């Protein structure tokens, strides 16, 4: 398999209350075209930072070193490039558009070693929020012809679907706007596309006219996924996309993601704190700890023969349906 993107020596630092926090330290990682790669780690390990860095959605002010190289050939199809200011107010860009209109983006573009490859090298400055949970306060890179555009080449699904959905717009229209913007469709074609997408995420047609508050958490996440794949992205990033859902809905969303990724031949970055859940979906698993990539391997190897003690500890901490109950270990009983 060829690499869809290669991440080299990626470091990200935030400033939080005047203190510098190193969120990622020298990450090197190749993501293969068509693979399902899980990034797992505990809180603060840098998972979301990595996902946002890949999507070019890091918070305004994160300091980034290193490179994320895209295989330019994957993105060669000439398409009309939409300036950020007229992008639809929807996942994952919703929220940062207004804030980027005020002044010219202070992006500095690094030149990579790999010649013509489109590079992402996010901005320098100051950080204004937490990394998890929402699309607010993200910085957006100025799109160029060979740089992947978030929303078009990369679909992003957040933990909280409400953060990427507009509360006062029918969901059908929100999905249509993504299609219209990135695929250059007229409204009629975009609405038809929206209908097809709702069907693909197994929501009834009537959902077209529903507002987000009328939907359950699982239904909202289906809408967010429909919007994320509307433009036919090569890469789908799901950042803790099932963590706020109950077990049954979580399993449904995971199978939905599995099916859509297979049908469209997408590459998947599945970010999760749950190694067991990640193992049900991923071809490979990358384990992050304190901002460092400590182990990367085929799912089977990671689960059956972890090389790193920390990976083993994560596996041991999993409370499965076959684990020996803590109650027994302690010899306690009522």
């Amino acid at each position, binding site marked *: 398999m060829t690499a869809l993107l290669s991440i080299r020596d990626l470091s990200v630092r935030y400033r939080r209350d005047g203190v510098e926090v190193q969120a990622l330290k020298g990450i090197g990682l190749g993501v293969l075209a068509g693979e399902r790669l899980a990034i797992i780690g*505990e809180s603060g390990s840098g998972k979301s930072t990595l996902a946002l860095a890949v999507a070019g959605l890091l918070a305004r002010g994160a300091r980034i070193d290193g490179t994320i190289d895209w295989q330019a050939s994957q993105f060669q199809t000439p398409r009309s490039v939409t300036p950020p200011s007229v992008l639809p107010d929807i996942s994952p860009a919703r929220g940062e558009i207004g804030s980027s209109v005020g002044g010219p983006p202070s992006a500095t573009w690094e030149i990579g070693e790999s010649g013509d490859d489109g590079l992402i090298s996010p901005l320098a400055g100051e950080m204004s929020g937490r990394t998890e949970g929402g699309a607010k306060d993200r910085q957006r890179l100025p799109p160029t012809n060979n740089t992947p555009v978030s929303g078009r080449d990369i679909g992003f699904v957040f933990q909280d679907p409400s953060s990427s959905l507009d509360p006062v717009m029918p969901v059908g229209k929100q999905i249509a706007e993504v299609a219209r913007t990135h695929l250059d469709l007229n409204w009629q074609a975009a609405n038809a596309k929206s209908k097809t997408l709702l069907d693909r995420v197994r929501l009834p047609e009537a959902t077209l006219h529903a507002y987000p508050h009328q939907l*359950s958490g699982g239904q909202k996440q289906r809408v967010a996924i429909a919007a994320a794949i509307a433009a036919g992205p090569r890469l789908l990033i799901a950042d803790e996309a099932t963590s706020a859902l109950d*077990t049954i809905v979580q*399993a449904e969303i995971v199978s939905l993601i599995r099916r859509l990724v297979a049908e469209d031949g997408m590459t998947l970055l599945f970010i999760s704190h749950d190694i*067991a859940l990640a193992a049900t979906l991923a071809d490979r698993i990358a384990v992050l700890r304190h901002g460092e990539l400590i182990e990367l391997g085929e799912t089977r190897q990671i*689960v059956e023969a972890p090389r790193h003690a920390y990976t083993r500890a994560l596996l041991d901490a999993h*409370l499965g349906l076959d684990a020996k109950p803590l109650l027994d270990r*302690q010899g306690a009983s009522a």
Partner: protein
Amino acid sequence: MSVLAVSNLAKRYRRGGEPFAAVDDVSFEIEQAETLALAGPSGSGKSTIARLVLRLIGPDAGRIDFEGHDFLALSGAALRARRARLQMVFQDPLAAFNPRATVARVLDDPLRMHNIASRTERPRHIAALLQRVGLDAGLAARAIHEISGGQRQRVAIARAIATRPSLIVLDEAVSALDVSVRGQILELLLDLQRQERIAYLFISHDLGVIRAIAHRVVILDAGRVAESGDARTVIANPQSAIGKALVAATPRLIRNRP
């Protein structure tokens, strides 16, 4: 005699103008030093039951007996005294506090409100409570925003045990914790249960966690009890449709164990 007996509990809300039962004819008992888990999908009524038991909301029907007393009939000083024996720990239990409040302050409240220790005795009590939950007594001076999630959950448990309760209601108390920390908190809960004979009403959507810590489980579906019984027996061989769906949806980690 059971610590808690809930009989035919019902709570109705309105949804889109239509009344519906969030909790519908629910009955269960919890014995001393026993953990009863409530499981079920989102919206099945778990938290509503917790709020009813804690008397944060009132039921439309049913009865709650706590330590042999008709809990819903209590008021005034009798209610206050009984309330000290019934505590709670939620997912982010210190969220209600000013983040600048110190750990000592958080633990001082219950000691003062329930007249457990005089002003001069309280610092010693607080130090003992912190040690009881595996924390350094020096943590007392720290602000709650300065301590980790696992430490915060330990402080919440210390606060809950300060009044020597017979029952603690835990609603998704370990759900937001990292797995490594989660194991330690579960061990702490078991340890406290063995030593102090505390009963737990343990709410979780995670059957793996329930299986690890609970003696018995009640599985809820749309406000009703779908099935109940010994936690491991029910999870190994669920009979209800919702029980089967919950078990089937739980991710499995297939490992080669030596």
